[in-house]
């Protein structure tokens, strides 16, 4: 079993690298600033949101620098939304390949999650720029953050596998998911604070069922409050990560042989 996994990893490592490299090359081809956009884009999005929410709506989070608050949530949500979106369409988009050459089909959602993951790592640079210039700076607990990155990656990959399976059978998913993501943006405390609803426990409880809440919570506890996240947030992150990955793998595996009839 483990030998088999090792063999597959080795055999398809090159393919995975090539697919990720392709995405990178195609993404920045013919743009003047090229890869610099990976840094600029999240910064500019944050600037827009900061103007709207802190100047117009006067949102504030007590005791915390609002720009850092916004940015730390935004990089996480952006990773999830972009990776899951690309993963969803990856199987359908590569159907001409699936139909002609044998290769493991999960490699397409996986390559998208890795590709956006590299972008995510790049977007840490503007985040840290903000942390140093307007926020609380850095502390030793930042070394715990990769744990959350890993859980976020597993969760997104699992979710992407489910989405890509569903979208093969139901093309409407592309539109539906666009709306869902829109809703999800507002249900995740990115620009607002969960304490705003603390007087309504039921809503607060429902909002905490959102896996992305826990990923942002974990990250902010370290970045903004200089503290180690409580044990329950460690557990929730891992449960959501592994749980969704497991469901994703099962759903994908069960249906992948049928893909070829539907595209």
């Amino acid at each position, binding site marked *: 079993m483990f030998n088999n996994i090792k063999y597959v990893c080795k*055999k398809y490592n*090159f*393919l995975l*690298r*090539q*697919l990720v*490299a*392709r995405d990178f*090359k*195609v993404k920045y*081809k013919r743009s003047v600033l090229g890869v610099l956009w990976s840094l600029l884009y999240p910064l500019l999005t944050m600037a827009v949101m900061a103007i709207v929410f802190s100047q117009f709506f006067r949102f504030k989070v007590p005791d915390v620098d609002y720009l850092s608050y916004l940015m730390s949530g935004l990089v996480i949500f952006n990773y999830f939304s972009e990776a899951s979106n690309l993963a969803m369409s990856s199987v359908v988009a590569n159907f*001409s*390949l*699936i*139909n*002609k*050459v*044998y*290769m493991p089909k999960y490699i397409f959602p996986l390559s998208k999650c890795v590709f956006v993951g590299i972008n995510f790592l790049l977007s840490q640079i503007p985040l840290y720029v903000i942390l140093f210039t307007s926020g609380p700076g850095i502390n030793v607990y930042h070394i715990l953050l990769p744990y959350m990155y890993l859980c976020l990656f597993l969760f997104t990959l699992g979710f992407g596998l489910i989405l890509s399976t569903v979208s*093969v*059978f*139901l*093309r*409407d998913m592309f539109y539906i998911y666009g709306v869902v993501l829109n809703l999800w943006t507002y249900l995740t405390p990115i620009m607002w604070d969960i304490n705003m609803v603390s007087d309504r426990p039921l809503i607060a409880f429902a909002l905490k069922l959102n896996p992305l809440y826990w990923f942002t919570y974990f990250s902010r506890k370290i970045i903004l409050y200089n503290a180690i996240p409580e044990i329950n947030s460690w557990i929730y992150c891992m449960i959501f990560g592994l749980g969704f990955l497991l469901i994703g793998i099962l759903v994908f595996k069960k249906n992948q*042989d049928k893909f*070829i*009839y*539907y*595209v």
Partner: protein
Amino acid sequence: MEANNYMIEVNNVSMRFNLGIEKGFSLKQGFVDFFSGKKKPPKKDFWALTDVDFKVKKGEVVGFIGSNGAGKSTLLKVVAGVMKPTKGNVKAYGNICPMIELGAGFDPQLTARENIYLNGSIMGYSKELMDQKFQEIVDFSELHDFLDVPVQNFSSGMIARLAFSVATIVDPEILIVDEILSVGDIAFQAKSEQKMLSMIGGGTTVLFVSHSLEQIKKMCDTVVWIEHGVVQKIGGKEICDEYYQYMISK
């Protein structure tokens, strides 16, 4: 595996396409059908292959003939592992190089150089092999001057050349060829045919679909005639003549 010297065993393979579900479900279509009062068409089964059964020995070159839509390409895809058969099974003892519609893995925005690596990885080759064979691929395709040009600016002949050159760099144990020998200009056609012949001479087992009976006669030891997903006849080159008579009298 040692007990028999077959390379490929195709055991009672049947392949069903469900034409009703093939389109997938779309709300839009459902809506349109609902208001136009149209009933869902009954699900129609279409058997692309029925009870196909044959075995191929090591080094044998098998040609497949039959009219368009007879199921030849489907059969090759089943053997290549792209599709799972509805019934029966396929056993292949060796690494397969499928040359079914070349250039499917090219990204039009990438350059020829980048596409060589991408396509190689899709075919399942390793990075070391690609590094090692890169020059050979370029030489064979004769596209030295266009290496850093995006493939979207290539002519279809140039794309076919590049794809053929990438696909044939290894000596696979099983080669699956679907009507690709007529790629490029006359000079390249001759060159690619030569390359195929030398691969065959090297003991490769070949499954080969072509509409050129001349090619089939020249290259194949065994000919399989498929019509409507059913094997009509398996035999030597004389099948080509029978097939020809059948097509003429149609």
